[in-house]
């Protein structure tokens, strides 16, 4: 446990020979020349966002379906996931290291734990907002409770579920920037390599914002695709 993520970071400025970069200024020329070195960190950041949100969604969906059957579970689940949510990610990245070591596993476990409360709450709200008459009508047509859940309640809860996914994704993009403290790279690592260099900070931070925006639009697109009745209804 003597690995120190920050000590490993080297202060280097490839192509920093020109006066603009040497002055730590904002240099479009330097950015154009060095943009490829952000490619790998960006991909790491995508990985650090998409995988935790996907795993968090699977766990939350399971928990929400369980709590839908057994209502009394909702309170305890929210309390526990609420505590996960309150622990700062920087602290979590260190608290997990004695158990999961330095690297992706630690980052993943912490990032997944942050998505749980957000997604679970939104799925639960979505399921509760399904009109009781709709459920009654489905039961009246002879659907079993399982069929009602998968064919009526979950589809009608899609807008809330997707809203939860969008919030979880945007939050995770931001928290993944701190995954550098778990030794998992990402755009945060680039920021820390040279936090005084304006061009570096703008490009790395800008890419994170861009990633959040693109993922948000993607989820919105998926939502429109899976809820065609929302567009059909005039």
């Amino acid at each position, binding site marked *: *446990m*003597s*690995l*120190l*993520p*920050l*000590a490993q970071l080297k202060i280097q400025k490839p192509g920093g020979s020109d006066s603009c970069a040497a002055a*730590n200024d904002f240099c479009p020329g330097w950015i154009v020349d060095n943009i490829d070195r952000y490619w790998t960190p960006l991909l790491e950041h995508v990985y650090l966002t998409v995988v935790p949100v996907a795993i968090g969604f699977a766990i939350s969906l399971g928990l929400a379906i369980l709590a839908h059957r057994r209502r009394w579970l909702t309170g305890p689940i*929210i309390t526990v996931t*609420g*505590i996960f949510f*309150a*622990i*700062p*990610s*920087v*602290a*979590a*990245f*260190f*608290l997990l*290291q*004695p158990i999961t070591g330095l690297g992706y596993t630690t980052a993943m476990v912490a990032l997944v734990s942050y998505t749980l409360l*957000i997604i679970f*709450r*939104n799925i639960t709200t979505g399921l509760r907002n399904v009109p009781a008459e709709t459920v009654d009508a489905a039961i009246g047509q002879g659907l079993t409770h399982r069929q009602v859940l998968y064919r009526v309640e979950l589809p009608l809860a899609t*807008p809330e579920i997707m*809203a*939860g996914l*969008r*919030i979880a994704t945007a*939050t995770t993009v*931001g*928290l993944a*920037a*701190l995954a*550098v*403290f778990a030794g998992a790279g990402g*755009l*945060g690592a680039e*920021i*820390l390599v040279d*936090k*005084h260099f*304006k061009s*570096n*900070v*703008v490009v*790395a*931070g800008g890419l*994170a*914002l861009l990633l*959040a*925006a693109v993922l*948000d639009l993607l989820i919105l697109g998926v939502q429109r695709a899976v809820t065609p009745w*929302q*567009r*059909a*209804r*005039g």
Partner: protein
Amino acid sequence: MIDPIPAFLGDFGEAIEFIFKERESVSGGVQIGGIPELAGFGLTHMEVSLAALLIAAVLAIPLALWLGHIGRGDFIATATSNVGRAVPSLALLAFFISFVGLGYTNVIAVLVLLAIPPLITNTYVGVRQVDRDTVDAARGMGMSGMEIVRKIELPLALPAIFDGLRTSAVNVVATATIAPLANVQTLGEPIITPQTYGFVGQLGAAIVVALITVAVDFIFARLQRAATPAGLKLAEPAPRRLFALPIKRRPEST
């Protein structure tokens, strides 16, 4: 104090010892850890967090109350919360470090910017959720716009406002951990300088930060209950965090 530390705790045991007992630094020469040093970091941590939360509240809550009162600001309320969520705190801090500089003022400015979005969104939504009939009744009784804000909308929006304060407080205390990057020695100092504090110091600081944040979350949850008007408590349990994006159940006209 726990003495001796049980061996099965491993790194955690050493980290707990670091919190309570001074030791020589990894690089040698200086004494690190122990209650006095961590209390100093903790004090700075609380100072910057509290200052930022107060400034953010003074700026954001009146603005959002007014926007909610006149009913304009759906766009501002949703846009600030969406952008606020997506901006990585590390990127914002680094942006201030590289463009503005190091030090207390800049750290507080970053924390204020992070605290504002939840406050605006929650206050605005809280005011808009007030039953319009209630507001109309107040107007019919002859209340002025100012009175309606002060006596009707503000009290009824208090649970939502405190929910926003809770979210912001937790965010601010969590983010103050990376303030040492801007030369402000908060509890993140051992985390940011492993060459002096080692992994044990990092872990010890992480334990303290986690405990403080969970405590802050708990305290604000209590405050929220205390701030809820008695009449609302009877009606229903106070709503917790709003993880709401505007949900369009109807198709957009595009």
